[in-house]
Each structure stands twice: as structure tokens, then as C-alpha cells.
């Protein structure tokens, strides 16, 4: 390490960033194996229906996106003093409203696209089914994104950790895992 003279609490020292994040990332990647195990369990179904395989990264990515936007905004609002844990807090309501609007738009489009790509790659799932799977799991995910982001920012702030370092890894990982779990809960009902 080149960082030889750190000040008392240096938020930008390599050692501090690595020490804060490695245990967190390691723990979270072990948790991710839960959704990995679910994927492995459904390997045969996924290889048979390419449309569902297309949905996996989109589902995970979009959940992570929405979570990252929400967390990043809440953290900034926390520092600026406009955030407050209350259902009537305008900043909180605006964030939640936007997440639901975005989820409905995105997962509708995703359903149609995944159906088309799946068809091109030799799949046979009907449009209605792919769309239903995408929208139902997407909206469940939106609820989770909002609840988890608010909880993570609150906890991180109260425990005294910098929410910029902790909330995004925690919430995006949680939403990834839940995204796969929700997706396959819906798949096992619909397919």
C-alpha cells in the first residue's frame, strides 16, 4: 500500500475502504449463493425456456438499479436534511412513487422483450405468461426496494456507518436474491 500516513479517520484510505467492504462483500456473496442455488435447481427449466433465462439478469439488474437510485437519493437527502422517516415525508413519497412507476414501465417492456428473444432462441412460452411473470414479480420487487432502502439508510445512519458505503451493496444484494426468489416463486405457479 502506498498510503503511509493516514490521518485519524481517513475515509479515503485504501486500507479503510478495503477493511470496511471486504467482510460485507464476502458475506453478501455467500448470501447470493442462495439465489445461485435456486438458479441451479431450475437449471433444466431455464435451459428449456430461454425467455426465463433472459429475464434473470434484467430482473436482477433493474432491481439493483431502482435500489441504487433510491438509496443514493435517500443518502443525499439525509445529508441535506430533507429526509425523515415518516409516511408523509415528501422526499420519501416522491422516491416511492417514482420506483413504482418505473417498475411498472420497465417490467412491462421486459416481459414483451424477453418473450420475443426467447422465441428467437427457440423457446415456446406464450406472451401472456412471460408478461404475467415479469409484471407480478417486478411489482413485488418494487415494494421490497422501497422498504429495504429506507430500512438500510435508517440502520446505517443509526449505527454510525457511512450510508454511501453500506446501503448500496446491502440493498442491491438483498433485491438480487429476493428478485430471483420472487421470480421463481411466480414461475413455479405460472409455468
Amino acid at each position, binding site marked *: 500500500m502506498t498510503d503511509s500516513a493516514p490521518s485519524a479517520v481517513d475515509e*479515503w*484510505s*485504501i486500507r479503510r*475502504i*478495503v477493511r470496511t*467492504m*471486504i467482510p460485507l*462483500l*464476502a458475506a*453478501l*456473496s*455467500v448470501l*447470493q*449463493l442462495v439465489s*445461485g*442455488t435456486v*438458479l*441451479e435447481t431450475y*437449471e433444466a427449466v*431455464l435451459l428449456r425456456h*430461454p*425467455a426465463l*433465462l*433472459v*429475464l*434473470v*439478469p*434484467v430482473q*436482477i*439488474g*433493474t432491481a*439493483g*438499479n431502482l*435500489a*441504487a437510485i433510491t438509496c*443514493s*437519493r435517500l*443518502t*443525499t*437527502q439525509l445529508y441535506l436534511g430533507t429526509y425523515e422517516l415518516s409516511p408523509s415525508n415528501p422526499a420519501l413519497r*416522491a*422516491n416511492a*412513487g*417514482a420506483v413504482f*412507476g*418505473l417498475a411498472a*414501465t*420497465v417490467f412491462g*417492456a*421486459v416481459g414483451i*422483450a424477453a418473450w420475443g*428473444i*426467447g422465441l428467437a432462441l427457440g423457446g415456446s412460452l406464450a406472451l401472456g405468461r412471460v408478461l404475467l411473470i415479469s409484471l407480478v414479480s417486478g411489482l413485488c420487487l418494487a415494494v421490497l426496494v422501497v422498504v429495504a432502502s429506507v430500512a438500510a439508510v435508517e440502520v446505517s445512519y443509526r449505527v454510525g456507518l457511512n450510508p*454511501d458505503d453500506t446501503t*448500496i*451493496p446491502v440493498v*442491491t*444484494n438483498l433485491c*438480487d*436474491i429476493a428478485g430471483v426468489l420472487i421470480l421463481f416463486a411466480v414461475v413455479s405457479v405460472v409455468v
Partner: protein
Amino acid sequence: MPGHDSARDIYRQAVPVITVSLIAGLFAGTILASDAMRANIAEVPGLLLLLPAFLATRGGVYGSLGARLSTGLHQGIIEPRFRLDRRITNAVVASFLNGMTVSVFIAVVTYATLVLFGDGGSLFQLVGVMVVAGFLSAVLMITVLIAVIFLGYRRGLDPDNVIGPVVTTLGDVFGVFFLLVGVAAVGAVS
């Protein structure tokens, strides 16, 4: 004003980036569902098992690099210039170390899980794939992230609204693609 946007404002600002990342996600999905990747999934034990952890780590490592740079810019303690600065260099080196360490860790834990459930698999193959994929994504993510954040910030874009989509988009498309490269590279060596 970051503190006073209505839901409609946030929606409008986020839709373009989310759409871009959606299209990229569909690309990632298409690579994942392609014949080549489906053959890999069927042949390499553990590939599907490590996929979510691998993709998520990209988000965790480089998302927090982005958030850190963004906060630094907002606080005025770093400047959006492409030159050697102790804070920026540290943040970059730390995220590279984090990315590589966790990639290898994931390979080992995946192998352990496979052994535990008696599914077989090769430690050399898994570690090799993750080192190749982890390294390629670190180089790409760090370069693009810094470029996007600095250039965006100079043009008045709030990095907080952009980091997430940029990170997940690139992370997923190139993550899946680099996995494919990793499998090919390890296959060529062994």
C-alpha cells in the same frame, strides 16, 4: 435540487438511464440464453451457482466506488479531473482489490458448495474463470465509471442519478460476456 424532486421529476430523469440499462440487461440476458452460454452452463458445474454472486459483486464494488466519488464531488474534496489525486487513486485501487478478492472468494465458496452437495466441479476452472472475468470487469468498470461521473458532473448531471444504471448495465452485460471469455480462456489453458 436533489431534495425537492417530485415523483414525476425522478421518473422523468430516471427513465432514459433505466431504459438504456434495460436494453443492456436484455443483451446480458440474450448472451446468457445464447446457445454458447447454455452449452457452458450445462458443461461447467457451478456457473449458474456463482452467476448472481458474481453479477452482484460488480454492483457492490463499483456502485460504492461511484457513490464515494459522487459524494466527494458534492463535498468539493475531489475535482472532476483526470489526473493523479490521492483520494481518487486510493478509491480506485481499493475497489480493484475488493473486486479481485471477492471474485476469487466466490469461486472458492462455489466450489465448496458443489463439493458439499456432491456435484463435482473443478476448483482450478472456477478460480480461473473468476480471475479472468473479475480482472476484465475491474478494468472496464473503473475506466467507464470515472469517465461518466467526471464528464457528467462537469455538464451538471447529478452523479447519484447515473451511477446505479451505469454500474448495473455495464456490470451485467460485460459480466456475463466476460464469464463466457473466462470459460473459453480456462478451456484454452487446460
